């Protein structure tokens, strides 16, 4: 299977170093690039609302956040973000169809109980979905399992198997396969190693994969 890697994407928009400085996570920088101004954004697993605060201030975005941790929700609300305490696995059902322009799930897909259901729900309530996840196919993960014979522990997956919040591991290939089966339109894909873009062999070299996808009916 060959993967089309979007080399040109990086040159299209000037990266905003400020986002990186403020947010410190490489996937946040790209989300800052993707999201169009004056749109409605739902951030699932919004933490203490950093990303939404930045998007509101810099892109005029009308944002909402969902977060399970009460103390993080408190911090998000205190900084002016409309966050609510809730479970991603169940939290989306209340929303009407197409309530948002973007639904963001940044590095938490592998932590949800029913990732496919979450993904389908995201595509129902959002016109587009931005999903980022740590790539379980990265060579360090593979090597760790191969050499140690134990559940891999790397910088990206630092937890002991019994403590890990990650319950559904997936690779770049896994996501591409699922997108094909589900008939999702992948509008953009970004592969990252640290803060750097990965331009070849993403399933081996990317630590984080980020996709901008939409449901098929948008283009029907």
């Amino acid at each position, binding site marked *: 299977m060959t993967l089309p890697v979007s080399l040109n994407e990086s040159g299209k928009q000037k990266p905003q170093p400020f986002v990186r400085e403020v947010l410190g996570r490489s996937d946040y920088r790209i989300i800052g690039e993707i999201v169009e101004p004056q749109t409605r954004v739902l951030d699932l697993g919004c933490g203490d609302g950093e990303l939404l605060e930045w998007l509101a201030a810099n892109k005029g975005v009308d944002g909402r956040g969902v977060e399970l941790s009460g103390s993080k*929700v408190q911090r998000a*609300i*205190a*900084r*002016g973000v409309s966050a*609510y*305490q*809730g479970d991603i696995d169940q939290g989306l059902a209340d*929303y*009407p169809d197409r309530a948002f322009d973007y639904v963001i799930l940044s590095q938490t897909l592998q932590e949800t109980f029913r990732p496919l259901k979450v993904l389908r729900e995201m595509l129902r309530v959002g016109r587009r979905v931005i999903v980022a996840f740590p790539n379980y196919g990265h060579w360090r993960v593979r090597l760790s399992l191969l050499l140690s014979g134990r559940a891999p522990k790397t910088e990206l997956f630092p937890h002991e198997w019994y403590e890990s919040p990650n319950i559904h591991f997936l690779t770049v290939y896994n996501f591409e396969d699922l997108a094909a089966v589900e008939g999702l339109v992948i509008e953009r894909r970004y592969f990252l190693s640290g803060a750097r873009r990965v331009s070849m062999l993403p399933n081996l070299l990317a630590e984080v994969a980020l996709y901008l996808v939409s449901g098929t009916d948008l283009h029907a």
Partner: protein
Amino acid sequence: MIVDSSVVRFDCISLDNGSTLAPVDVDYQAYGELNARKSNAILVLHAFSGDAHAAGISRETGKPGWWDNMIGPGKGFDTDKYYVICSNVLGGCRGSTGPSSVNSATGCPYAMSFPVITIGDMVRLQKMLLDSLGIERLLAVTGGSMGGMQALEWAVSYPERVVSAIPIATTTRHSAQQIAFNEVGRQAIMADPDWSEGNYYGRKPPARGLAVARMVGHITYMSDDSMREKFGRRLRGKENFGFDFDVDFEVESYLRYRGNEFVNRFDANSYLYITKAMDYFDLANGQVSLAAAFEQAKARFLVISFSSDWLYPSYQSQEIVRALRARNRDVAYVELESNYGHDAFLVDVAEQTDLIRGFLASTSEKAA
């Protein structure tokens, strides 16, 4: 900050039960300065037994307001920035017209001839007050418990006038359990021979009945944890049981004290009328769903509940949040960890302060 109440009198108010009340007084206090654009007004709504004295030190009694820890310069509702108004509810006994007020047609107190009022009626009177003060839009309406019901009613009944709503530890309608506790309180009052079908004014009030009603209330405001922490099984001023029915336990002493203290400041008939208004309240009444009730609402919402509040449990706040989400309204929600039960909204100040300060700041920014 020494504060005074003012009273505004209106010719009449039409009520949800179809009758009118004439004239009608509303007692209110205000803190801070209304800005030139009149865009910084916040209406604070008191809970069941509260009054207009929300903040500052009362000139009359020398006591601090019931939410003084939340309202004032530099506090959650910062009176250096916002103009905060609080009024006694219709049916109350602290300056606004209620069953203890004199009926101008008869020259006697209304007593049980006072019409049965609703949360909607209370809110209508508040709207009349704001009209008379020339305040078109409220940056926020907020309150805990019954105050939260009024905040919700405001957001739905007068959507154009409410920029944001902060309902705390509240519900869109009472459950059977909540109605049941209110009914126990009412029955305690009405079972007291001194109640005399409500005609006790100028005579001995139904103090025992009202005190028992308040004792039940206080139990529901606390949590098992907070009672264990506060009283445990400690005895009151004795080493051993008295083997009689005087006070043995600290908790008995506390409840009796609270009950008796309440009698001095609250009217038994107001207790009946206000609890009835709470029990009747149903925001979704006449609508196909709660979400449909929020169809008209335009406000931004901050909903807060408390983990140990079993009188207004978090699921009731979550119902509000879910209904708002179904209409894609702007809503923030958090369940704060607390041991204080329903009392938490009056006691747990630090966390609420951060939330409310941030929420109000971003709301005024968006509204500007």
